[in-house]
């Protein structure tokens, strides 16, 4: 195995965006984006966690995966919400997290903010495009 390499990231805060585009269980992208988001919390970076297209189903309440024999990871999104609240409350921490649902995707699927397991900001696609353009790192799945 090659030697572990580390970069000095001390004191640098960047804007990360995680774009969730896929339904939660048809592919592994939702679960693995979630894992990436959770790891990034340790680095105290800004993060927008965005749900668009069928990705909005990832945070829908009342998921039951028993029949498809897959791990129901929808409760884990609560950790993202906790990280966001911690960041909001801690004035010494320069870290802002946002949980965003694209308005058009939500409405096209007959959903409303009450249907989600976490509190979200609902933002129309034209405004979301502006936020996306402001990001420094965009990771999607």
């Amino acid at each position, binding site marked *: *195995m090659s030697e572990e390499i580390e970069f000095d*990231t001390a004191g*640098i805060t960047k804007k990360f965006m995680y774009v969730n585009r896929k339904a939660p269980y048809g592919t592994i992208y939702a679960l693995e984006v979630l894992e990436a988001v959770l790891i990034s919390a*340790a680095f105290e*970076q800004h993060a927008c966690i965005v749900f668009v297209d069928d990705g909005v189903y990832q945070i829908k309440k009342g998921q039951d995966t028993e029949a498809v024999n897959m791990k129901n990871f929808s409760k884990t999104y609560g950790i993202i919400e906790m990280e966001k609240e911690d960041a909001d409350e801690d004035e010494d921490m320069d870290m802002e997290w946002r949980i965003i649902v694209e308005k058009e995707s939500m409405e096209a699927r007959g959903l409303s903010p009450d249907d989600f397991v976490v509190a979200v900001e609902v933002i129309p696609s034209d405004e979301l495009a502006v936020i996306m353009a402001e990001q420094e790192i965009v990771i999607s799945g």
Partner: protein
Amino acid sequence: MKFGILVNEGPFTHQASDSAYHFVKAAIEKGHQVMRVFFYYDGVNNANKLSAPQSDDRNLVKLWGELATEHNVDLVVCIAAALRRGIVEDNLADGFRISGLGQLTEVGIAADRLVVFGD
């Protein structure tokens, strides 16, 4: 410029890994620095040394390894994604190393640009 690269798909089903390979090669030839290539999702399959494509086809696993050796490029495979897909030290191809997802966040912070190859 200092680049970080994220490869999200395996070596054959999708073109993403080929495109990433050509991008990294071209960037280095132009004098840029590639700080790290991080392999995530099915991208971890790029590090499977048991991969044996037909002899008249490109062997991306080998090509990545050669690039790493020639230009000292850090090729990192996500451990969580790798274990799920049966990529372990025993079948890890030359030039790659297995590490945590934090290495992706880290290169995102440290590089000027993180370029993502996937679907």
